[in-house]
């Protein structure tokens, strides 16, 4: 056995944990730039990173406008999924009959590819209000994880705590507010983290399927740029889409930490 006290593996300092991936990214971009320039690859096949940045700056008005549209649609769909998913979960958790009758249809909605029902929704709703059709489609995509996670969470209440609340004569509302909701919160947030990403995917897919009718969101910018062989702008739109996804994920992760950090086991620091 070693006499040295530093037996535990020291964690990398914080700046290094940021610096290493950034450095790797810069190396990758530099290699890409170099490759495109030396091999003289045409920009409609693969534009150099510098060209993508140039496109981003040049078309910033259009692109940021599109980013705004996609962000709005994503957030609206996410909030809708959250509200509807949680409302149905409460219904399911309190009524076995409701769950038995409705859950199979929720599953059917979930497993049916969104692309295949999109034309139908577009005809039914989209002719008059295209934005409604997009919202419905994106909501359907994001809905299920919230529903199934929240239902599970609301049912996972500690049995003894339930009896304790019964013993102290808790009202229906007190049980919901003080026991079921906090018990379900980690599950709901877990579902929300998945749904946040799915809402973005749903928004993009809906826009793809709706096609030229929208003409405003980031997905449409990608199609349009492709059609015009404006590949630098396509990459720029793609970059913004990725950044949006990352932003959504980290916002929800931050929220989870804020709400659960002080009590939940998942947020407990590991003993080394």
């Amino acid at each position, binding site marked *: 056995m070693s006499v040295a006290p530093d037996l535990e593996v020291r964690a990398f300092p914080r700046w290094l944990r940021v610096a290493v991936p950034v450095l790797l990214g810069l190396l990758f971009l530099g290699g890409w730039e170099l490759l495109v320039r030396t091999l003289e690859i045409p920009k409609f096949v693969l534009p150099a990173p510098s060209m993508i940045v140039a496109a981003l700056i040049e078309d910033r008005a259009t692109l940021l406008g599109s980013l705004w549209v996609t962000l709005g649609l994503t957030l609206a769909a996410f909030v809708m999924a959250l509200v509807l998913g949680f409302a149905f979960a409460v219904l399911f958790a309190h009524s076995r009959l409701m769950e038995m009758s409705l859950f199979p249809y929720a599953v059917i909605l979930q497993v049916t590819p969104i692309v295949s029902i999109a034309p139908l929704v577009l005809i039914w709703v989209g002719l008059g209000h295209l934005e409604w059709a997009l919202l419905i489609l994106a909501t359907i995509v994001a809905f299920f994880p919230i529903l199934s996670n929240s239902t599970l969470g609301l049912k996972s209440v500690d049995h*003894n*705590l339930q*009896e*304790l*609340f019964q*013993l*102290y004569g808790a009202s229906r509302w007190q049980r919901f507010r*003080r026991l079921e909701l906090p018990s379900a919160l980690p599950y709901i947030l877990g579902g929300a983290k998945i749904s946040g990403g799915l809402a973005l995917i749903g928004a993009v897919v809906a826009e793809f399927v709706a096609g030229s009718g929208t003409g405003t969101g980031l997905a449409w910018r990608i199609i349009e740029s492709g059609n015009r062989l404006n590949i630098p702008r396509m990459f720029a739109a793609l970059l913004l889409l990725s950044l949006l996804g990352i932003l959504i994920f980290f916002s929800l992760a931050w929220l989870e930490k804020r709400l659960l950090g002080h*009590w939940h*086991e998942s947020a407990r620091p590991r003993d080394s």
Partner: protein
Amino acid sequence: MKSPVVLSQDSAPGTDEGSNAPLIRLRGVEKRYKGGVAALAGVDLDIAEGEFLSLLGPSGCGKTTLLRIIAGLAKPSAGRVEASAKAGGGGIGFVFQEPTLMPWASVFDNVYLPLQLAGSSRAAAAAAVESAIVRVGLAGFEGTYPRALSGGMKMRVSIARALVTAPRLLLMDEPFAALDEITRFKLNDDLLALAAEQRWTVVFVTHSIFESVYLSTRIAVMSARPGRITRLIAVESDGPRNVAFRTSPDYGALCRAASAALAEGGA
């Protein structure tokens, strides 16, 4: 088949409320589960005010079921449970086998829960909550969350929560079974001190002969399924319950008597 016996949880008018009337009176209490499994068969028991009664029996003898029936958490299939009006007031305190704390709430909020559910504001309840926390020896831990507490400390929070409503009757379901012996001994002594100070009537479920003899003024020995009370043992000791009592000949004799009664019951 449903029994024709009327189940009464509250004392009917005209019930004997004299000083000798028991706090809780059980008559012919039976519990049968849906599959036909009989958990309890014909339990008669009077719980007197101020006594520390242990329900001692092997696993699965229905002692927890009996405790839950006394608490009103389960309904007997047959028989009567009568509670004297004196059992009212602060209601019943119940301590589960697990600490059963809300992990999202601090020690203060966990102890505050019974008062919160009764509609008391945080400010109005603060003094009672604080005093309960102090009495179980957790002063300074008000803001701590359960995950940072040891098993023994969690059980102390659970006891503080049970005593915050100042109940006359405290029901405990093997509260210390999961704790190590050192912690258990310490909590046993603290519980005895609290029970004396609060003038509690305690019904304490345990499968430990030693624990039941050490804590109780009376032991109800139960037989294996279907559970019945086979013997009542009075634990008479003049001196305080301490290490001297734990090593006294009386203590040994009582343990042997309880052990023999358990063996008789088929344990």
